[in-house]
């Protein structure tokens, strides 16, 4: 009898749709590989009861957003002794929160653009509004303003002038209780994928959005963005990207699968702008492209990641 695997996808986060697209693809791929895989949407079916009844060997975590990426579902699965793909609760918690992740990366000397954070409570309860002017000067403009805990570029905006900062902060705070304000690095955008170990890098994927901005529409409309894999970079720049990404993965303690988003400035220096614990697996997602460029087709990619979880389960 084939092993039962629950692909966790959907949920209640704003990225529900993206997650379902990833999840359906992963479940189909795993079925093609001989697993008894089914999609489990915790927003529709009770998680604990369903997992117990189905006697699953492992869960493939394809949830995006808060509950899926911040360690919440991972902690539940730990309690149930169900092996699952991806990083553990603590790494998820730190990585998904851009403030904690930036702190950790800074402390480890990983290159991330100058930044500052604004917490909603500081504005509301401490009257810290005037700090925005200081931040604009310290971080420098143009800046990127993003929610501390969200994905898919949701709630993200670019700010050229200080006067536009409050509106951008309000947009970001619609998605999370803190906003990260980061100096905007203009240059080439690439994604560095990891499967298994930070020491075996996948080819970099270069991202060229036709609109000029890799926003939600550019990410999830087929054809709205051109991708090149491997990225069209001088070897030493590509090597620097891999090195920086590997340091980021190690610093954050990530395992199985992850993706770092990198901006390369005009001087060829890579800056880590985001690290994901549950990279998208849709038909327009970056990690599957990186794997494909390395000769790993999607079903093989899914099976490989799943087997890492199964191997951990076997040790219990």
């Amino acid at each position: 009898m084939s092993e039962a695997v629950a692909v966790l996808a959907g949920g209640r986060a704003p990225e529900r749709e993206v997650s379902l697209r990833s999840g359906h693809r992963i479940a189909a791929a795993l079925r093609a590989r001989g697993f008894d895989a089914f999609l489990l949407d915790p927003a529709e079916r009770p998680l604990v009861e369903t997992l117990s009844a189905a006697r699953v060997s492992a869960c493939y975590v394809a949830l995006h957003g808060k509950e899926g990426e911040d360690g919440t579902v991972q902690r539940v699965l730990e309690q149930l002794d169900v092996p699952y793909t991806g990083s553990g609760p603590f790494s998820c918690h730190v990585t998904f929160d851009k403030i904690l992740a930036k702190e950790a990366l800074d402390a480890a000397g990983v290159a991330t653009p100058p930044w500052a954070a604004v917490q909603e409570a500081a504005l509301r309860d401490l009257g810290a509004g005037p700090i925005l002017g200081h931040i604009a000067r310290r971080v420098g403009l143009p800046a990127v303003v993003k929610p501390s805990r969200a994905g898919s570029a949701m709630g993200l905006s670019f700010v050229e002038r200080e006067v536009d900062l409050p509106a951008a902060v309000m947009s970001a705070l619609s998605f999370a209780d803190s906003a990260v304000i980061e100096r905007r690095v203009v240059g080439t955008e690439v994604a560095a994928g990891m499967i298994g170990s930070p020491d075996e890098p996948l080819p970099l994927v270069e991202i060229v959005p036709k609109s000029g901005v890799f926003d939600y529409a550019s990410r999830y409309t087929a054809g709205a963005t051109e991708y090149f894999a491997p990225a069209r970079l001088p070897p030493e720049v590509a090597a620097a990207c891999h090195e920086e990404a590997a340091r980021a993965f190690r610093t954050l303690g990530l395992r199985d699968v992850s993706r770092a988003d990198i901006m390369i400035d005009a001087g060829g220096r890579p800056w880590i702008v985001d690290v994901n614990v549950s990279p998208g697996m849709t038909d327009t997602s970056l990690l599957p492209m990186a794997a494909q460029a390395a000769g790993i087709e999607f079903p093989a990619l899914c099976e490989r990641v799943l087997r890492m979880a199964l191997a951990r389960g076997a040790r219990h």
Partner: protein
Amino acid sequence: MAELSVDPYVDLYARRTSGMSASEVRALFSVAARPDVVSFAGGMPYVQALPPDHLQQVAASVLRDRAEVALQYGGGQGARTLRERLAMLMAEEGTPADPEDIVVTTGAQQALDLLGKILIDPGDEIAVEAPAYVGALSAFSAYEPRFLQVELDDRGMVVERLEEALVRGARPKFVYTVPNFHNPAGVTMSRERREHLVALCREARIPIVEDNPYGLLRFEGEPEPTLRSLDPENVVYLGTVSKVFAPGVRVGWAVAEPGLLQRMILAKEAGDLCGSNLTMLITERYLEGDRWRRSLADLVQTYRRRRDAMLAALERYFPAEASWTRPSGGFYVWATVPSYVDTQAMLAAAVERRVAYVPGTAFFPDGRGRDRMRLAYCFPTEERTWEGIRRLGELLADEGELYRSMAR
């Protein structure tokens, strides 16, 4: 080095598809579909109110008596007997129509697409209200027009603005308007404006497309004459049974002069051969006799109570700086919130607080409307409406506090 193709057809797509893209707002609506979210987003008719026994009777009788027709292809114009019923619906609002001038379409939405196909060449100008029905903007956009946006106020389209544009040399191919209980604005065009618009367009030889899905959903006051009744020769009229019966049957229609009508029928036949005989016959039978009038009257009372609940709740819970329209029929209230609020960005926070609306930007072709929202009162119960507006009011108050904390 290889360019990865996520979509092997990407180089093949026609230019007119360039505006079709994934959107963050649509992604949020998928989260908002949960039952614990009070959704003022969709303009969904309250079909639960239709009497189930009657519906079963109607559907059963069609399959019993007319199965050989119901399950077969039909003509592109739609059956004469149904067109007679639709003409009767128009007579309810005092608009004469000859069943021969009617083409039955798959919802009025298809008629919008057919008109775009027949009338719009890329780059042509067409006049729409600002804000305008988002479905019309989408249907027309596929034919790559330029939009001449005409402002709208509490008495509907500001026809003077259109006149000024014409004086400046604008020559739109047609003027599209929803004169009754506008979507999204909820307002109704005044008698004077109607007469002005009809005279202006007749003089300038610009046809009017009158979209009237909500006309029979009037809660109070006297109906204004339809534009079509004021000038049958220069007005293409669009109707639908979606609001007086049910959107699931997808029965709408257009009334036009013979030349235009013929092209619409040919374009429809090219697109889908014919509508569904099954649902057209169900609609025809539903509209026989008088029972549908009672159901509609009940439905209108329900919508009226829901409108009242929403207006009262807005009064109670929305911040003093906000304003909104007071519809006397239809489905929608159009709210203007303080300018520091971006309703598109705020939607995520709203869904998090279990309430949803449509951000105003959807209804303008040029990205305006960030301080507007459409609130549909047709679907949630009165109790849910109170709760939803309370949640939204609290969120707006919090946004105000947040903004003031940053304003210097």
